[in-house]
């Protein structure tokens, strides 16, 4: 596969390490009420769609950027690649 890195252009996916569903960015607050239940759903349950999937890839043999790749799990077609840091900020994550 080839991942079109937002900064570096097309790169062989072999340079990357796959992690999983980009929903993992939305880590719950560990000090909140009922954290154990929310963490269970957060860490263990997946939509696992047959179709477009937003997922985390790490450019380990490259610039070490974490990317959010939108890839179709039936065809492997990639329709969007973003820097995970930007996505995280859009999801309201900061410090």
């Amino acid at each position: 596969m080839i991942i079109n890195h937002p900064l570096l252009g097309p790169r062989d996916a072999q340079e990357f390490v796959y992690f999983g569903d980009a929903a993992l960015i939305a880590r719950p607050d560990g000090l909140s009420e009922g954290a154990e239940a929310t963490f269970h759903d957060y860490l263990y349950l997946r939509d696992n769609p047959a179709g477009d999937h937003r997922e985390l890839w790490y450019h380990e043999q490259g610039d070490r950027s974490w990317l959010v790749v939108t890839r179709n799990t039936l065809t492997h077609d990639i329709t969007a690649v973003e820097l995970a840091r930007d996505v995280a900020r859009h999801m309201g994550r900061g410090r």
Partner: protein
Amino acid sequence: MRYSGFRVIAEALTGHKGWTPAWRDPAPQPAYDYIIVGGGGHGLATAYYLAKEFRQARIAVLERGWIGGGNVGRNTTIIRSNYLLDGNEPFYEFSLKLWEGLEQDFNYNAMVSQRGILNLIHTDAQRDAFTRRGNAMILHGADAQMYTRDQVREMYPFLNFDNARFPIKGGLGQKRGGTVRHDAVAWGYARGADGRGVDIIQNCEVTGFRIEGGRVLGVETSRGYIGAEKIGVAVAGSSSRVMSHAGMRLPMESHVLQAFVSEGLKPLLDGVITFGAGHFYVSQSDKGGLVFGGDIDGYNSYAQRGNLPVVEDVCEGGMALMPMIGRARLLRMWGGVMDMSMDGSPIIDRTEIDGLYFNGGWCYGGFKATPASGWCFAHLLATDTPHPTATAYRFDRFRKGLMIDEKGVGAQPNLH
């Protein structure tokens, strides 16, 4: 009709006119006592044992395509019970025992061949871990043997002992491990179930569940609505897709695992060898092809095909282990879609929906599990209690922190 050597001879002499269909193609009835969704190895085995061991009932197996077309038809055919953890080992040993009597039981030669499996050891830490594992196996009534480097060399002199990046220091063996002719497993169960009145309905895709008041009433299918008292889903590879029709999210991801076969070669390799340091495992089929594989590709996928890096990685492992296969040719590669669960272990459990039961999350351990999976799922469907060897395969183990994590890599499916 009963198969036997005499029958084969008789038919040969009379032009094979007497052979009847291995299973019927019945039209779906409006309702059944049990519906098994999924005509793969596990679904067919479930129907077979449900009908044979538990109760006479109206049973149907619904298959989207053709039976045996899922992972039972696209795997590396290995059977073994060399597991480490209490939650797993009794189940897989139960499965191995069922394999040992399977062919006589369902009157079909699936070529269950116990030529032994060997996990190679390359480091002291690995030997420690395998010693722990081997002892766990024996404590659970399985067989296990620890081999020295020299003993391994005696068994497989052509392995790379002299020029290896990761020297072979020994191995953990299981003599009762081996291989089975995978397609024949699906066919044997299908024929056995059909013979006991189970309706096997191919080209019948389940498109939804009819659920009222927290209870499932039946399934919507591409061939119309079919009612049922109880519905068991065994659709490894498509579990998340199918269960989403019931509004469930599962603790698993779908990943592609590639497998490979070489051209036919005269006998070379008797048993099964796994080369942990190189992500490679191999056996030789009765037809002479080297059947081998390695790691999953590692990204979510429902496409039954993989990519080049894993192909190369697997063949590098093969060459590192058996440097003489350089001139053997890779004939065919294919991919199967795995339910990769969050701890690498399966689920056989009830759901929150009355009458709806689930069997999946087999990662790439599914083939060897086929008989026990069918038996235990049938047991759960028939008695509403888990089979003694499958009590740990529950959904709530993640909530309770009772993961069955053989590899110890945590909640990252592609690492299991």
